[in-house]
């Protein structure tokens, strides 16, 4: 009895239909499904009666850090249909792939991603051949929107072509060899038809492996080996297990014969995890649609949900209805004429593209043509296959939202609770934080730091009942103490179950939650996320990698300057939260410096009051290139070159020019400070320019000396009116000097003028400045009268 191989695309309704029909038709004895073999003994849990989508959440903590991945199921997943329909006809259903924590999955988050995407060349060729934009459209064209006749043959041809002779990765090969062993084991039992449902990319290889191996493989030989097996099989074990089971070989024999799915021996052993677990979590269509790049699979889950339940035509109608409802909900006018136009276009496109009824992209194209009467900034995501980009047309945003849908899964009440619940409760207990009331923590104490991190993680996860009353507020805040108010809350457990989707421990969950806050966040939010990550002591590497990316897009100099200052102080000093010297922080520093230099060069505008935020941003850049040299790819000379251009540019506001000038000076470049001061001596701009200079090069101004003298000359030469114009900005500029340094300046002035006296007395007049001003005014009035009368 041979095996029937069904190659499917994960989450494809057409494939699900084929799987169901084949199972009902063949009534196989064994249904082998691509899925984690380690949950075979818990398949009952999957079939408790959940509301889909759900996912098997697998979490593993290895030497290389924690790794989590999902095996998502929705109503129309071929794997899910194989599972349920197989059970219905009384077949033995088993998952046959390596567990999700196996090294072969080390860089995968989504088990059911499209494998063929990683081998893009064949896909591209096919798209060209059928004149479609991308693989999703191609798939709809060939399978979802195509007649059912010959579907199986078409699928086989498609996947054979894709696989061709392309060399699969070692990870894929390891998985295929392992799956082939299950198929051989099922065939060897010889007790009925065997149906194998796997990703279509693997099917051709699997078929070949089974055909090759079946001759050399006999059940008695394997039994004789008693788990240690013949040499040939052991070799395969090693390949498949990636070294994992090799160390536990003696005990593997027992696991092999006794534990796997409670079935009799003969089945391949299942590599056992040392620190991993799988749990069911509720999933959502939105998350299913959120995988990108190599993790992505079929897009538009809500649309395919309709298609699975109600067919292509109804799915198209439902899509239009949903988009229109959403748009009208946002007060966008969608007229009947628009709908007629959309329908006409969609039908026309369907006919041109050879579809009986409008397929997904036909409908979307029709809607876009009818509803968008503007030029688009970006191609719609279904044309270029990828996530929504900022600046996407609002109508298209709603279309994508309608395609993703809001459907959220729900687990049956008897489902074992996800690990986070127990983990958090245990952690709280161990940290002595399971009570109520006020808790004071000293962050310098390692025990308290751990407790603080736990509380912050729960706060970030939105678990109610943990509120921080006081504590450090930002990257530069030296406050080492925190005070928390703990309040027991009925909603804690439900919130934890929700949060479990983010991770299995408070730390992972908080990290993932923080990462989820990043897309579309502005810099203020980014900065908050960053600081939260530091407080939580979690996932900072991943968060920061994303952050480094986002920083490159920020358009606000001041806000980004604040972020850089925070990040830089975390990178340089923060031993408290353990972030000092972190390479990921370094990457953010680097990206922020590059971006800030870029933004600084773009600031134009006439004389304007000095903007302290802007100056702080330049200070942050200076500190970064000075102190974080090893992580900043922009070298000092390049940075100085940029800012010396800024300082020489007349269109740049004076404060920024001053700061740019101070930038080079403070980094030790030779400058003609006295000449520069003279050049900027106009009363309206002098103060602002100096504010910039002092913000950056306070020290140099004091030690070099010359500037004070020149300033004295310049101010002395001002007329009374000019001085009044310059005064406010000058005052602001000198505020950059602390009192002691102001005194030093006063002393220099006294020396320059050859006067002896108390410098301090110059700074602190015993008289009210208003009185002095009034006296000045009186004096001026007298002078005017004298002049009028010719007595001056």
């Amino acid at each position, binding site marked *: 009895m041979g095996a029937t191989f069904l190659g499917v695309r994960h989450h494809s309704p057409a494939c699900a239909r084929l799987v169901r029909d084949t199972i009902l038709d063949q009534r196989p004895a064994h249904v082998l499904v691509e899925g984690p073999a380690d949950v075979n003994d818990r398949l009952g849990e999957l079939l408790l009666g959940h509301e889909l989508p759900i996912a098997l959440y697998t979490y593993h903590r290895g030497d290389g850090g924690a790794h989590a991945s999902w095996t998502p199921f929705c109503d129309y997943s071929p794997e899910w249909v194989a599972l349920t329909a197989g059970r219905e006809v009384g077949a033995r259903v088993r998952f046959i792939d390596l567990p999700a924590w196996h090294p072969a999955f080390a860089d995968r988050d989504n088990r059911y991603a499209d494998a063929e995407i990683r081998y893009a060349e064949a896909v591209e060729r096919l798209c060209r051949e059928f004149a*479609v934009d991308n693989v999703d459209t191609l798939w709809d064209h060939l399978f979802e929107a195509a007649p059912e006749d010959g579907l199986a043959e078409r699928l086989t041809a498609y996947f054979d072509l894709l696989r061709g002779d392309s060399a699969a990765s070692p990870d894929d090969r390891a998985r295929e060899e392992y799956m082939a062993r299950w198929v051989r084991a099922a065939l060897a039992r010889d007790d009925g038809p065997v149906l194998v449902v796997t990703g279509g990319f693997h099917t051709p290889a699997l078929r070949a492996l089974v055909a090759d191996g079946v001759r050399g493989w006999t059940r008695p030989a394997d039994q004789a080996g008693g788990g240690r097996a013949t040499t040939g099989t052991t070799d395969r074990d090693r390949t498949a297990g990636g070294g994992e089971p090799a160390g536990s070989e003696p005990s593997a024999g027992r696991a092999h014969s006794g534990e796997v799915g409670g079935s009799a021996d003969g089945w391949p052993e299942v590599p056992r995890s040392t620190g991993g677990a799988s749990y069911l979590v509720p999933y959502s269509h939105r998350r299913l649609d959120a995988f990108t790049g190599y993790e992505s699979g079929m897009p538009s889950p809500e649309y395919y949900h309709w298609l699975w339940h109600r067919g292509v035509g109804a799915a198209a109608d439902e899509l239009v209805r949903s988009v229109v409802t959403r748009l009208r909900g946002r007060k966008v006018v969608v007229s009947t004429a628009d709908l007629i136009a959309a329908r006409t276009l969609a039908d026309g496109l369907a006919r041109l593209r050879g579809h009986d009824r409008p397929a997904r992209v036909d409908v979307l194209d029709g809607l876009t043509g009818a509803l968008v009467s503007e*030029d688009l900034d*970006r191609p719609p995501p279904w044309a*270029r296959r990828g996530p929504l980009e900022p600046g996407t047309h609002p109508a298209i945003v709603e279309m994508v939202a309608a395609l993703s849908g809001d459907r959220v899964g729900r687990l049956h009440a008897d489902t074992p609770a996800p690990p986070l619940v127990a983990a958090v409760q245990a952690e709280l207990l161990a940290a002595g934080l399971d009570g109520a009331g006020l808790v004071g923590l000293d962050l310098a104490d390692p025990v308290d730091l751990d407790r603080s991190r736990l509380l912050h993680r729960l706060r970030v996860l939105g678990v109610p009942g943990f509120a921080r009353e006081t504590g450090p507020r930002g990257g530069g805040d030296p406050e080492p103490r925190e005070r928390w108010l703990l309040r027991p809350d009925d909603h804690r457990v439900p919130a934890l179950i929700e949060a479990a989707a983010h991770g299995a421990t408070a730390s992972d969950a908080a990290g993932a939650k923080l990462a989820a806050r990043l897309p579309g966040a502005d810099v203020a939010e980014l900065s908050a996320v960053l600081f939260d990550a530091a407080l939580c002591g979690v996932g900072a590497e991943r968060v920061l990698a994303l952050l480094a990316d986002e920083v490159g*897009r920020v358009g606000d100099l001041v806000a980004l300057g604040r972020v850089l200052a925070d990040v830089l102080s975390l990178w340089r000093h923060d031993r408290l939260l353990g972030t000092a010297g972190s390479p990921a922080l370094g990457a953010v520093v680097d990206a922020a410096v590059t971006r800030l230099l870029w933004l600084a060069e773009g600031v134009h505008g006439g004389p304007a009051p000095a903007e302290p935020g802007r100056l702080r941003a330049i200070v942050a850049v200076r500190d970064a290139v000075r102190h974080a040299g090893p992580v900043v*790819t922009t070298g000092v000379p390049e940075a100085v070159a940029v800012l010396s251009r800024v300082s020489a540019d007349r269109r740049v506001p004076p404060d920024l020019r001053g700061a740019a000038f101070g930038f080079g000076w403070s980094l030790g470049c030779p400058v003609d400070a006295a000449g520069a001061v003279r050049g900027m001596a106009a009363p309206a701009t002098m103060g602002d320019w100096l504010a910039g200079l002092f913000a950056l090069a306070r020290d140099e101004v004091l030690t070099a000396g010359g500037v004070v003298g020149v300033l004295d000359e310049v101010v002395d030469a001002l007329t009374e009116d000019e001085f009044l114009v310059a005064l406010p900005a000058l005052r602001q500029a000198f505020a950059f000097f602390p009192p002691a340094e102001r005194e030093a300046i006063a002393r220099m002035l006294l020396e320059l003028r050859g006067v002896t006296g108390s410098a301090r007395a110059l700074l602190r007049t015993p008289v009210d400045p208003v009185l002095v001003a009034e006296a000045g005014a009186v004096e001026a009035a007298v002078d005017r009268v004298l002049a009028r009368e010719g007595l001056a």
Partner: protein
Amino acid sequence: MSDQKDLQRPPAEVRFADELARLRADDTAHRPPGWALSLEAARRFIVGDESRDVSRKFVGDPSLVDRCLVTLATSRGLLLVGEPGTAKSLLSELIAAAVSGESTLTVQGGAATTEDQVKYSWNYALLVAEGPTPRSLVPAPMLRGMAEGKVVRFEEITRCPLEVQDCMLSLLSERVVAIPELTGPDGMVFARDGFNVIATANTRDRGVNEMSAALKRRFNFETVFPIADFATELDLVEREAGRLLERSGVGAPPRRDVLEVLVRTFRDLRGGVSSTDRLSTVMSTAEAVSVAHAVGLRGWYLRGEAGSAADVVECLAGTAAKDSPEDLARLRRYLEQQVPRRTGAQWRELHLARHLLPG
């Protein structure tokens, strides 16, 4: 039309006459009334079909071509919008050639375009001699397109004065032009099957925002995007630049690595890398071709070799940064900060040549 050989640029229906003829001969699918080809064949003509030896003429998304063709088969006009240099005019020419077998019914929009140039004017000598008669009428492209059932192209429609744009309104909805000077049946020209309008507009000069809502409603908008795929764009630039250089008598084909640098730079400055702002100048593929052409000319006529990455810098300053100091600054920053991050001798060469930028 006796000798097409010495034409600088014959229209699409002449350039690809044999392909059109073959497609027409093999065309068994249903044709919309008034069309020279079926939609399937028209699509094949534009996106190409290797098995029938039909060349690929437009490298953008195939779905765009589908949408354009279907739009033309409905009662709405087609408006192609996009940055300059994204092959909008080429696409409209190809579509017109495929649908009507003729792409020369074209109105070129501009500030000086008048209604006469859109609908009709008079031969004044005849008008004075005979009065208003069909003989003295000089039909403009719209009128001819309607009477003959052909696709009319309206280039740069948004550059026309608004009142000229609005004369398209009745034409597109009523599908009739009234000629009040003529009496009887000659006074009304009704559109025949096959008539439709392909307008183009670019998003830089003057966007579509000023277009009246009424006119917008009569068009389906299709945005033409720059080429998404790097390799495709590189191939196109190589092919086109090679052709231009050959025609300019340059003996050395462009260097692939230099073109790579050039195309990548264009894509980055178009808005590709995160820490770089987009240039305000258009960084289109067409512009890349002209820079590649200039680079090749410099290399050949100044030094007798293919152009180098240093030539790219010099040519970029003139074409990409044009007269905008901001763009020049952006370009300088790009050369200073982004280029050193890339590996390869050609990128190093580009980086070293950064001081060739003026200013």
